[in-house]
């Protein structure tokens, strides 16, 4: 990774695959599965995995086959009561899992059924998902590499050969004509001579064409100059295959849960691995990469997932920075998130669909300024702005409020030293 490479977004294809997958699931169990999944996440997921791995409690894969439904109802609703009755099976489970009482869950029998249905569906689906997604990514990459400049070069070469051939043919025909008609044999002209002749015979057309080409070239140069240093769509490979799609999309985790400081600091903050451990102490396997990627967090923290202990050899994770503002720009997240109440998506796009973090916005000065020109200042219920508003002389108030809003730029938000110091 010596430089930034711009990759075609693969997320669209992934989205398509997921969509198709969703349809491939049998429609009959769809309703139950959705309910069951929701219920599972709200009641069970904090301690149990739907697979076989143990979190706080055991993995629930196959639990529907292992135990009687009636017994499960009792156990889930109030396990300690069941143990107290002296139920042998209950005591066995209690003993097996280090005598940790499973708290009573406020669920109905119907809900438990739905959860069990979901577990069944999960068990059937799980292996397929991983395979499909991995396959999908490969496909996309293959398609990506097919697109190249070689084809264009080839076409140009073909054209050149064609021109030479046609000229040769034309000459042969002219020469043949001349021989037949007994005229003087025409001299074979070189390509350059022919070109010069054509130009000299059509000066106006070529002059116009030249000017147009120059103008187009200049326009292209001008446009591309604006693109210098703009890395919109930058999507570098990261040390951990962290998927925002899974965390923010599927699991619906709020942005602020991990990027805690966005609301009070200059930087939104990359979560430190100890924050990951809030969930990943127990969630030790991911749906896509299994233990491999989560294992990298453990490696950073020197965490042993079996004994659940931390070692001394902790090493930080070196993420690749995606959003690189130049050093002479000051940007403060909290100003925009907490005060301006700007949604994260406004600048970062549909993060919940990204499998790899990427730069959504241009992050150019023009982009910033445009937003500052259009965006309304969130003056309501803020003592600071009350004071500022009071201080505005009437004529300014009138001038600013002509369009009904006071924008950021009207309060000086596009002045140089608001961002450059």
């Amino acid at each position, binding site marked *: *990774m*010596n*430089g*930034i490479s711009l990759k075609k977004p693969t997320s669209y294809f992934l989205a398509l695959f997921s969509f198709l997958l969703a349809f491939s699931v049998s429609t009959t169990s769809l309703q139950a599965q959705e309910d069951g999944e929701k219920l599972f996440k709200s009641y069970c997921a904090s301690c149990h995995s739907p697979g076989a791995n143990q979190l706080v409690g055991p993995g629930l894969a196959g639990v529907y086959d292992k135990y009687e439904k009636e017994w499960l109802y009792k156990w889930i609703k109030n396990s300690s009561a069941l143990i107290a009755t002296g139920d042998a099976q209950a005591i066995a489970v209690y003993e097996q899992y280090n005598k940790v009482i499973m708290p009573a869950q406020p669920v109905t029998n119907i809900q438990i059924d739905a959860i069990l249905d979901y577990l069944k569906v999960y068990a059937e689906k799980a292996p397929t998902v991983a395979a499909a997604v991995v396959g999908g990514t490969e496909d996309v990459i293959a398609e990506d590499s097919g697109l190249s400049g070689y084809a264009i070069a080839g076409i140009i070469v073909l054209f050149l050969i064609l021109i030479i051939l046609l000229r040769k043919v034309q000459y042969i025909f002219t020469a043949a004509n001349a021989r037949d008609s007994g005229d003087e044999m025409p001299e074979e002209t070189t390509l350059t001579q022919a070109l010069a002749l054509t130009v000299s015979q059509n000066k106006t057309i070529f002059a116009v064409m030249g000017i147009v080409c120059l103008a187009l070239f200049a326009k292209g140069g001008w446009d591309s100059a604006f693109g*210098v*240093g703009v*890395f919109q769509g930058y999507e570098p490979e990261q040390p951990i295959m962290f998927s925002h799609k899974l965390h923010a999309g599927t699991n619906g985790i709020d942005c602020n849960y991990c990027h*805690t*400081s966005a609301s*009070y*600091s*200059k*930087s939104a*903050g*990359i*979560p*430190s*691995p*100890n*924050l990951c451990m809030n969930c990943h102490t127990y969630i030790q396997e991911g749906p896509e990469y299994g233990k491999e990627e989560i294992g990298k967090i453990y490696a950073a*923290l020197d965490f042993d997932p079996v004994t659940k202990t931390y070692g001394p050899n*902790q*090493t*930080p*994770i*070196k*993420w*690749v*920075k995606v959003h*690189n503002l*130049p*050093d*002479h720009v*000051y940007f*403060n*997240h*909290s*100003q925009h998130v*907490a*005060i301006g109440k700007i949604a994260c998506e406004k600048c970062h796009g549909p993060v919940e669909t990204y499998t790899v973090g990427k730069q959504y916005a241009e992050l150019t000065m023009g982009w910033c300024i445009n937003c500052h020109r259009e965006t309304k200042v969130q003056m309501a*219920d*803020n*003592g*600071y*702005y*009350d*004071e*500022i508003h009071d*201080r*505005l*002389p009437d004529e*300014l108030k009138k001038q600013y409020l002509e369009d009904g809003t006071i924008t950021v730029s009207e*309060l*000086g938000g596009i*002045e*140089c*030293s*608001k961002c*450059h*110091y």
Partner: protein
Amino acid sequence: MSNNKKYWKGLEELNNSPSFQKVKSEEFNEYLPAEDFLGDKEVLESSDTSRRDFLKYLGFGVTAASLAACEAPVNKVIPYVVKGDKTNPGVANYFATNYFDGFDYCDIVVKTREGRPIKIEGNKKSPLTNGAINARVNSSVLSLYDEKRYRAPQMGGESTSWSKFNRTIKKRLSNAIVAGGKVRILTNTITSPSTKKLVSEFVAANPSADIKHVSYDAVSASGMLEANKESFGVAALPTYDLSKAKSIVSIGADFMNSFPSSLELTSQYAKGRKPENGWMSKHFQFEASLSLSGTNADVRMPMKPSEYGKTVVAIYNYLNGNKSGAAPKVKMAAEHLLSNKGESIVLCGSNDKNIQNVVVAINQMLGNYGKTINIDKPSFQRQGMDADVAGLVKELKGGSVDVLIIDGANPVYNLPADMDFKGAMSKAKTSIVFATRPNETSVEAKMVGAAAHYLESWNDENAVAGHYSLTQPSISPLFDTKQLQDCLMYWMGLDGNYYDYIKATWSAVTFPMQSQSLLFEDFWNTTLEDGFFSLNTTESRNATFTDNSASGVSAIAKIKSSELEIEFYSKVGIGSGNQSHNPWLQELPDPVSKITWDNYIAMNPVEARAKGFATEYGEQKDADTINITVNGVVYENVPVVGQPGQAPGTVSVAVGYGQVIGKSNEVIGFNAYSAMKGMKNYSTDVSMEAAGGKYQIATTQTHQTVMGRTSIVRETTLDVFQKGVKDNYNPAHMLATHEGPMNINDVDLWAAHPVATAGHHWGMSIDLNSCIGCGSCVTSCNSENNVPVVGKDEVRRSREMHWIRVDRYFSSTPDSLETRSYGEMEQPEDNPQVVHQPMMCQHCNHAPCETVCPVAATTHSNEGINQMTYNRCIGTRYCANNCPYKVRRFNWFNYMGYDKFADLNPSQDDLGRMVLNPDVTVRARGVMEKCSLCIQKIQTGKLDAKKESRPVMDGDIETACSSACPTNAITFGDYNDKTSRVLAASQSTRAYRVIEEVGTQSNVYYQTKVRNVEPNIA
């Protein structure tokens, strides 16, 4: 203007030399040899670069640069592995702690970002220092990131591990103790109760051995300590309250700089200098060299240092009714003291116990004890007894010391040469030195403990009776360093670490003194948060007074003067020399001489001229050198500098120099301590001769001249001010118009800028009466705004980058009371009056710089700030040319990358770069920069207010200079806030704007200086 004074920044301007005239008309006076080159055909033809080549390279360069710009480097972002609760990237944390290096004591607040200390500010809560801070303290953050620091303990010149180091010492100590040998601990003054307790426990635990702790001060106050012991039975310094003193008489005491407790005294002094209060203290200064305090005195009299004693006696006699023979100014001072009994203070900087005894008697006679001076609440900031050090050296030379432990002191460097500490130290069987970086003493030691920086250490201090403070680390040790206390605990076989020990001490000693907290943990946490714990009432011991004045007077009578005397003084930047390796301090222009990066022999300019020495210095003008012998120590080829105000027949030299700085170990100046025989701060045994050499001097004296627009300084006397006619002391600028004279503010070419009515309108007010010129603002600004260090060579070329400078104007009146002979006018250089004027971007509402910028890189904000946009600047420097205040700075080089600055610029290495403020751009080569009114702090202050849903309160936002000002001379605020202090100040009768007549409508107001002096007395 009410006076006919002539103002001059330096001797160049006073004498208006031709070269000065040339320099002042050239803002950028670098010489470009274009004419020589183009005019000479041969030179032109012999050049191997043809025009074609030039264009080729140009084309290639442009293309390469554009291509390079297309590829951006891959940046890494590395989160904490385990993030602390309060450590948030992008959010500053503040820790209250304190600074004490044996010279300055200061309660401070350390600003950290991402866990790194980046700025030091005064602790505004502290009742002792009142938030005052000086340049030395606020620059000390840079020494934390010093490349040259010891990174591990050393044994025999090799790095070793702490366990080996400590085991070795423990063994040697126990051997010495078992054999009943001598163990000596030498430190600078220690005020830490825990350290003292630890040392005394160490002594008590080994009764069989001879263990002694000796402390000494590089700049000794032994004379005062002894005098107080003899007079009151307390070997300590009294505390003063200058804010209550109406009459302040200082005889050779630079109480704003080098006198013990200078920070406390400075902040108190300013409180008594507000003419609006209806009274103002009157400050008399009798001294040889023009000190910082001397520049602020109302009445100053130059005299030889050997005459300090006689002056003290003259005042003593005058107070006793013996009024004959007193010099006019002495008489004036004595009269003023008499009329302000109980509201006066007499201070003396002499290290002679006899003189101090008489000073004590004078203050006693005036009834000042218990009112302005408190010996019952002593200060412990100087404890070194000269006799103890001499005793230790004798012991060492005798070879009887087994183990010598030195911490926080550099005796090889700052003890006089005749003591030969180096030789003495080599005779100790084991010598252990704790130092943060290699110094003269540590390189001689057999074992060197890599000491932790104070920002990495735990400690406690008891600087003044009843004021206890905690030193807490704001960063974990950068290197493998430890404190002496931790090691000592190991050597003693104690469990735990020094932190636990301090806690235990506080639990046992300090906690019972208070009643606010019931639980120790609460008390501890509150103290850590505040940084100190202060008792409102102190146990009053009412020390009984023993009059030793008679013996003092008779001893003083024996003091002999000589033709030529030398005074040793401490410079404002370097102080005692503890931080002479700090480039910020070296580049801080001395408030008096405006010379950077050097010490020198200061001489009266009239005498210097008579001896044929140059008295004007610049890029092309060097100082002359002399060979000088002081107390038998010879200094060869040292520069001599003409210093206005220096007493005739004296020279002076700053201590603290002669140490190395930078990666290349360049020696700056020469070590004057070597000649301080007997730790006396002057000598009569001086001889000198011209050496015939030349020496380059880097002075900022005549840089940024203002083309004779001396109306920028306004001053008056208390009398005139109190009569209340504003036109007499601060007249409005009137402009002749066709409608008759009009106030300059009513005549305008441009429409009024809307800042006056909408939103914020930031501005500043600077009280020339409070400003003492100490330069604390300059280094604070360096630290806050990533101002680069340019080095001596560049300062000589007027390329210093300081955003704020303190202009020092000398002024002289035609007639003065103190005359050389009756009827003859005093030479202006002999005893000029001084005005210090901080000068930075004035943020003009009608800024001349803005109108000439071809690329609109400098523009006006709707909050009244003149904005400088570096990324837009193309470096035409038109703005600097058009600035009437000469406050814009041009980046001639890439200071953070160019080799020439690698030696000194802290931003050049990874370690030094940690001190940079991440909120402020590090400027590139070729752009202009200037004061931004700390825009980053304004933006933060506004954002904090928005988050808390409240208006910005007055005082919420402080600029780096205003927060660092020990006298609160600088006030920052919002003119649109009707309750703000800055608005009130701008409307006061003393308020004026500098060079107002050109109509810049600046947002910085100055307050006219008021001297408490009768007209015609300097």
